[in-house]
């Protein structure tokens, strides 16, 4: 056996000749630049409310171009209820949605549930909990829910450019009120690059869409949710999936990281969701109905690949509720499966 050791690579600190804006900062991303991060918060977001975060704090403080590599969202709430040992996750279960755009370049058509932007990185993604007791001895807990979205491609931003974040906290299509107020924190992670760096001709702008399914709908297909709406190709990077459960009618949806997604992990109704996926060219991507937890891989809640989707082409997704025998079971309300499509397209720079 010949042991070979990986080459030592120089860690790029970004601290080049200019400690603020050093590094190469390639046109299509690269790894150069001085790391930067900026944050905006909104507290007391209540059910039915939309809010745009302060754009003044969501842009680089340097008067230089910069890249944004990653978007992180944290949701904090002091108030949620405990039912039968299960936890409600306010703001998570498809109720808290966000739409990003920079200039007139939108990242999605509609606000997208925050959990669908990126894969799961940890089983702690969706929260840590502080617990205590209030004056009445009831449980008072605070939940922290974290979502991390590494953008498909770094986005080149001109000085002064900003990605707007508009949150929409609403129980659209989902029974389950009241929703407690939440605080959202958004952080953009990026790199400042040297002033005078020529701007690229095009930028890679993300595109995200999603499909909502409740198990009592039995058998449901997408219409145009996973269509490329542009007149030019886009690259689809991954599908994402999240399953939520509404244990009681007045409860917020709670995240179920593995239940209801494979025959080995049935939901409380003894069922799981299967999916079938074709594209508009006739490619069988998932030809036969397969458990969604195997297609999406419950350890990541995502299926990552790279696939070009031509202008106005689309994926056709069908979801079905199965029982153990592999046939459609008796649909029962309360379980929701959200499926997202994440990709990007080249946009001519404004």
């Amino acid at each position, binding site marked *: 056996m*010949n042991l*070979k050791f990986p080459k030592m690579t120089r860690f790029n600190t970004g601290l080049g000749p200019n400690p603020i804006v050093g590094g190469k900062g390639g046109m299509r991303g690269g790894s150069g630049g001085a790391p930067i991060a900026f944050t905006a918060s909104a507290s007391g977001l209540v059910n039915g409310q939309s809010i745009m975060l302060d754009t003044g704090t969501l842009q680089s403080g340097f008067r230089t171009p910069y890249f944004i590599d990653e978007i992180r969202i944290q949701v904090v709430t002091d108030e949620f209820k405990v039912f039968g040992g299960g936890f409600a996750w306010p703001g998570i279960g498809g109720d808290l949605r966000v739409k990003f755009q920079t200039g007139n370049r939108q990242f999605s058509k509609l606000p997208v549930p925050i959990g669908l932007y990126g894969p799961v990185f940890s089983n702690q993604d969706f*929260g840590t*909990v502080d617990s205590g007791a209030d004056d009445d001895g009831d449980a008072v807990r605070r939940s922290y829910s974290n979502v991390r979205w590494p953008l498909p491609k770094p986005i080149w931003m001109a000085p002064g450019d900003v990605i707007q974040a508009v949150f929409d906290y609403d129980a659209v299509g989902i029974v389950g009120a009241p929703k407690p107020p939440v605080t959202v924190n958004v952080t953009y992670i990026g790199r400042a690059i040297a002033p005078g760096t020529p701007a690229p001709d095009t930028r890679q702008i993300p595109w995200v869409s999603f499909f909502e399914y409740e198990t009592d709908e039995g058998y449901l297909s997408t219409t145009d949710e996973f269509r490329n709406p542009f007149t030019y190709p886009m690259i689809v990077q991954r599908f994402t999936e999240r399953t939520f459960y509404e244990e009681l009618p007045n409860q917020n949806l709670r995240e179920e*990281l593995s239940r209801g997604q494979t025959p*080995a992990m049935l939901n409380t109704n003894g069922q799981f969701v299967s999916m079938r996926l074709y594209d508009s060219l006739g490619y069988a*991507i998932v030809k036969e109905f*397969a458990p969604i937890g195997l297609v999406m891989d419950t350890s990541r809640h995502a299926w990552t690949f790279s696939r*070009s989707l031509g202008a106005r082409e689309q994926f056709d997704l069908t979801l079905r509720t199965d029982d153990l025998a592999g046939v459609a079971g008796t649909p029962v309300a309360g379980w929701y499966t959200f499926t997202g499509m994440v990709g990007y397209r080249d946009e001519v720079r404004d």
Partner: protein
Amino acid sequence: MARPDFLSPVHLYAPVDSFPAAGSEQSPNPQLLLNPNKSAMLIDQFRFSGQQAPLLHTDLWDFTYLGVDIRLGSIPLTNGIVPIPAIVPRYFGFPFATTAFDGTPTNDDAVMTWHLPRPLYVPPGVQLYVRFVRQDVFSVNNRDSAIENIGFSVVGRSMPTDYPIPKKIWVPWATATQCKQKATPFLRFVSTDQELANPNTELLHVTSLNGFNTASQQGDQGLPVKSPLTAQMTLSSGKMLMRDPTNFFSLFPTDRGVLNLDAVLQSKEFVRCELELTQPDPAFGNTPNDTIEYTTIGMIGYREVQTPIGVQP
């Protein structure tokens, strides 16, 4: 319409019947594992799901005793039956997927993903043969139970129909050794020459070793344990991978249990692994004689072989 020149993702699912008894085996229908788009495909991942029943926490939920044997046509991908924990890494200390936000495992359910070290090219018409075996080697006081609802899937990419067939392809290789030992007397275990081996005629590029240790105790959940277990590995040529017996969990951190390598194993060469408990294991608790530790070590790599001839669409 002409097929576009891109690789389209493809997912193939083949369910497997239950395992009613130890020693039984099941195979998914190989027809379900053919690319429905009739072209060649690249396989990136194999995924397994399963459930141990009845839902008792006293079961070992790490699937230590579920083995798999995979072939592409006549080319073996595994060295016979290989326990699944030897193939897949763990996630955050738990063998497989967890369900709860606080990290509480579901105990009985699992989804496991084998990310192949290199994409596996599958010519059109060449079938994958997969065999799951419930091994009774590690049956403990009949506390293992039926494995149910096995799911197997292939994650890959469809290739354009006019894509030229390569002369050679990368074929993954998985092989493993397993042992069990009680607290008293402490056992010294040495793997055989056939276990962590390259029995093929080609060079084997070793990409990782996967180590997994778990304990079974009455009333215990069989959680992965950290014990005073040491490992020492030597090559059949006499070279040492480590000079001294080394703490098992230094080699295989409990969060993922993976030791990444970039090494080459010559044809017919093998790794000999010696495991030893050097002192009483705290995990054995008050009833050491009732507790058994299971250790699984897998070796993952790939080799270059002649492309099998398939059926053109």
